[in-house]
């Protein structure tokens, strides 16, 4: 057996180290910011709305709201409800949840918050008319015909844009959005 004195010394060093590091975050947390996944996505979605131009016939009147529809298998996505009643470009945002088989005709934005392909593919298939900005968070979403897709790189959010899908939906993006997109799928010649 090794003497307890020796053992205790080793432990003390660990204890001191640990308690020291406990104070570090208070000092250094300014240099890197982190946030819950959907809180950050909410920020992105807000800007997507700002930088997207819908076809004029999308809105019944000049003051009708922008309908943000959420189809999710992830309850954390309910965070997006905090965009309710925010005003963008003179229009109020109206957030609603979409149940399975519900019509998407009233939606201007459809956020499919799920990484379950068997849920995402049929939901995206429900998009039957132009003027809907579909946003996803699953690999291959733009290949399925989705317009904007989130992906994660080293714990940071990135997004890709499918210009073909945007064009067939009649959506136009401002350059700020396209410059921040990591991948822009151009029209195939």
């Amino acid at each position, binding site marked *: 057996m090794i003497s307890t004195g020796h053992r205790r010394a080793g432990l003390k060093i660990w204890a001191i180290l640990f308690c020291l590091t*406990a104070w570090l975050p208070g000092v250094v947390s300014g240099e890197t910011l982190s946030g819950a996944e959907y809180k950050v996505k909410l920020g992105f979605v807000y800007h997507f709305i700002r930088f997207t131009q819908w076809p004029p016939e999308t809105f019944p009147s000049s003051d009708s709201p922008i309908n943000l529809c959420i189809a999710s298998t992830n309850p954390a996505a309910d965070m997006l409800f905090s965009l309710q009643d925010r005003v963008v470009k003179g229009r109020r945002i109206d957030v609603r949840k979409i149940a399975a088989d519900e019509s998407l005709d009233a939606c201007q934005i459809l956020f499919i918050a799920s990484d379950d392909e068997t849920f995402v593919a049929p939901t995206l298939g429900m998009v039957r008319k132009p003027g809907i900005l579909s946003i996803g968070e699953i690999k291959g979403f733009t290949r399925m015909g989705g317009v904007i897709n989130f992906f994660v790189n080293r714990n940071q959010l990135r997004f890709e844009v499918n210009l073909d899908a945007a064009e067939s939906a009649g959506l136009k993006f401002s350059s700020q959005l396209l410059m921040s997109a990591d991948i822009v799928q151009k029209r195939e010649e």
Partner: protein
Amino acid sequence: MFQLQVVQPSKHRHVIRWVVLGIILLTAPLAGVSAAGPADEGDIDFTQFSLEELKSVKITSASKTPKNLSEIPAAVFVITQDDIRRSGATSIPEALRMAPGVEVARVSATEWAVNMRDLNQLFANKLLVLMDGRSIYSHLASGVFWDIQDTVLEDIDRIEVIRGPGAALWGVNAVNGVINIITKKAADTQGGEVTALGGSEEGIGTLRYGGVFGRDSHYRIYAKYFDRGSLFQSDDPIQDDGVNSDWQSGRGGARMEWKPKDGRDSVFLQGEVFKNRYRAEIPMLAPEAPHIRQIRDTSRAKGGHMLSRWTRTFSEKSDSVLQFFYDYYDKDIDYANVEASTFDLDFQHRFPFRDRHELVWGLNYRLILDNFKNSEETILDPDAETLQYYSAFVQDRIRIFDRLNLTLGAKFEHNDYTRWEIQPSARLLWNLDERHSFWGAVSRAARVPSRVEHDGIVQEVTLPDPSAIGQVPVVYRGMGDNGLNAETLVAYEAGYRFQPASSLWFDTTAFYNDYEDLIAYRYDHDGKIEVEGAPYVIVPLHFDNSLRGESFGIELAAYWQATVFWLLQGSYTFLETNLNPGLLDTGEDETYLIQASNPRNQISIRSALNITSQLELDLWFRYVDRLNENDVDEYASLDARLAYRPTDRLELSVVGQNLLEPRHAEFSSIEVERSIYLKADWCF
């Protein structure tokens, strides 16, 4: 090993001090963190950030989605890739220590005893273990040869630990639980990754490269090599334990997935080969006193597997899976050797029915061919055997009300030893609201006798008392019985999950297991055989089904994302096992012998702290109660990991394991040492 030893007074006070210290240490940062700046992201409005600023924000997401867990009427715990990385564990059994209710004890350098809800032993025969859907439970000794099961830990996606009988879905031998080790899809391991790890106990190197071919296919190839030294041996001479050391293992494999665009089919292929060797010391009878010699030998193993799976998706709630695998291993067992080939064909189909039923049904056929090279100590008769298993299962999940689900299932399985085994289960889940859910279950499960219990003659040489010179060695000769029944269990479980906030959840389970027909060695007191002229006595032992038993326990798990950069996870396990007639001499003329024991209490607390975006500190405190039957003291341990990520592609870490004591025993007199290692992980 069979001897019952005098239980020594425990060192409780010493351990309690460690427990208290551990808790104080782990909760100390609370004071610091709560005082930290924007710890609570609740007051950040990310709509005020520009797109470019948003791209630099690190996101945190609960790695275990309690929501999905709250839908499962069983005691499930998921060990994620992130958990494995941050735990510092360097092997699969070590990673399993993170799950509540699981007992993991290092038996020797190459052996672990892993079990749950029951006495733990080297081959925990009532625990089923799968890797990517391939059973790695050996029919030979009924258990897992942990020395030949491994993979690149960085490529593991998650390990699902399901406590309690999974027999209605998984079939025989899933009695106490099922562990499913699932590796990542090839699409998620694109590019290269090299890891190098070196330290006082082991050296490990891995290489993985993933790429694309064609439009719709991803692949990865990987290789891994490790060299592990010996564990420390305590001062007592060891009679029954070969000291395994200089353990070297190499393995390589490939995986490919094909998933055509817009197609409903996907195909996945995987293959692997491995080669292992370690130095072992085997006790042998010797003509001169003390009549036991340790003979040095190199123990070798090699093998591999191929697996293919075809999934067809009909809709979100309906799919079918056809899977085939072939697995082969050739492994030395002391001076004996076993070769076993397994062919397994499995079909499953899931579909909704009306609008209240979700049905799953399936069929399975398995063929095992083995070939055993007998030695003096281990004889199987017949030495080559062909075993067939076929089974069908059906399970229906019925939505009674919106928040109340009943799952009924049964598996019907035929095997060559005990014929038909029927294993039904009923599970009820009640989601009270978003925050509370309750579940309860009653199930029956069976374990089929192993090849050794059925056909074996196994001899073990021991000295009755290691300190006694001049004692005559005893040879225990365990004899199999081909009339054995399956061991059966009826399990009663109840669980409650509570999620008071999105960052905090609790999972509690209580269970009662009622075992019948347990297989154990029966020892007749007047059965000693004196062999004419031989310097030893033979004690014959016969396997039979006459043991009954019960176990009951409580398992708690807690998960708390205290701040965006600090995660705390804890678990507590209480387990009591009683066998009847017990292991002690009953005063009758027979005694039952089982080499098994479990800790009554276990505690695990893990802290994962992101000091900066480039610096991580992880601490893992564990307390494991004493093993009464094995006379192994309780121990407390602390692992610490500090990792630095200078770029996104490189991670350097230093890990110290078992820091509280220079060495401690976990299962036998062989001890695990304090150790340290350095690791580099580079992605390209």
